[in-house]
């Protein structure tokens, strides 16, 4: 009984940390007119804050849950496609071709660059990657 309750408060504390860091990120982003959106600044702040167990343990509990269901969070904006039906009917085919091709190009370039660079690494390093 005590354990799940402890876990729950940990998750909530983690959410509180994430929201607090996002707020700090928004303030910094707007206040200093940084090129990064607020949540991105929040992510960088989190990277600095994770060295403290006080932040790390609750954030780990919350982040794992949130990131495991990351795809759900895209559904509301995805449905927004219905508000652009006129653009879609006019340019839909072309937009789809552009998005599909550019995604495949980006994905292929990333994988090929990483694959090519891997060949140049020493055997020890390759072993370290396998761990």
């Amino acid at each position: 009984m005590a354990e799940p309750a402890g876990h729950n408060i940990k998750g909530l504390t983690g959410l509180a940390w994430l929201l607090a860091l996002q707020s700090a990120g928004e303030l910094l982003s707007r206040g200093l007119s940084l090129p990064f959106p607020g949540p991105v600044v929040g992510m960088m702040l989190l990277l600095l804050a994770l060295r403290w167990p006080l932040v790390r343990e609750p954030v780990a509990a919350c982040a794992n849950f949130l990131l495991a269901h990351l795809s759900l969070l895209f559904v509301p904006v995805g449905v927004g496609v219905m508000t652009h039906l006129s653009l879609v009917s006019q340019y839909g085919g072309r937009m789809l071709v552009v998005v599909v091709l550019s995604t495949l190009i980006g994905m292929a370039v990333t994988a090929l660059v990483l694959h090519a660079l891997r060949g140049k690494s020493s055997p020890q390093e390759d072993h370290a990657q396998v761990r």
Partner: protein
Amino acid sequence: MPKFVELWVYLSATPLFGLTATLVIYVLAQTLYTRLNQPAWANPVLWSVVIIASVLLTTGVSYPTYFAGAQFIHFLLGPAVVALGWPLWKRRVELRQRWGRLLLAALAGGIAASASAVALGWLVGLPTDVVLSLAPKSVTAPVAMGIAEKIGGIPALAAVFAVITGLVGALFGKALFDAFKIPTDAAGWAARGFALGTASHGIGAARAMQVNADAGAYAGLALGLQVVLTSLLIPLVFRLSH
């Protein structure tokens, strides 16, 4: 019958409807996806979007009415972006070790995706604001919206492009990597995952996490890195070119 219509009108106008519909349809789509052994074509985001949009269009419920409820889910994208620091931090040792090549791959892939989208968009004659909305499509939707807003694109359209980009990665990633003979050993999975996270953000990363743990970790790392690089580079390039 009129009673039923009255009830539907009432229910469809409360925020409860949008929130419930999103969660229930997503959970059903996710369950079906797992039951079918996770084939790429049964992607739960794709089917949830198609089903919800069809229901809204056929019943005449407007998107703002739906979003009044769905915004509670949408809101979590902010903390989720912050949470991306967690997979980055967990892999910090590897990140430090392989910093150079990962950064190079992230830069090359991010620039290739963004530049080819803008170039192709112009080539096929899309309007300027649509082309600008294409530029940040490789990053997760909320960040893509923020960047599109900064450079004069349409935020809502940028979000939709980002979602479709994610789906393209999740749907065709495996076939593409197989065609380019990227192996399926530990380093190969890392490259596949990293490429999925770079070019198709959270939706691609979600797919990578389901296929292989190494691929998933590298996808999470890549999408965090891409968020930082894209939000730095695209507004900068845009400012320099104007």
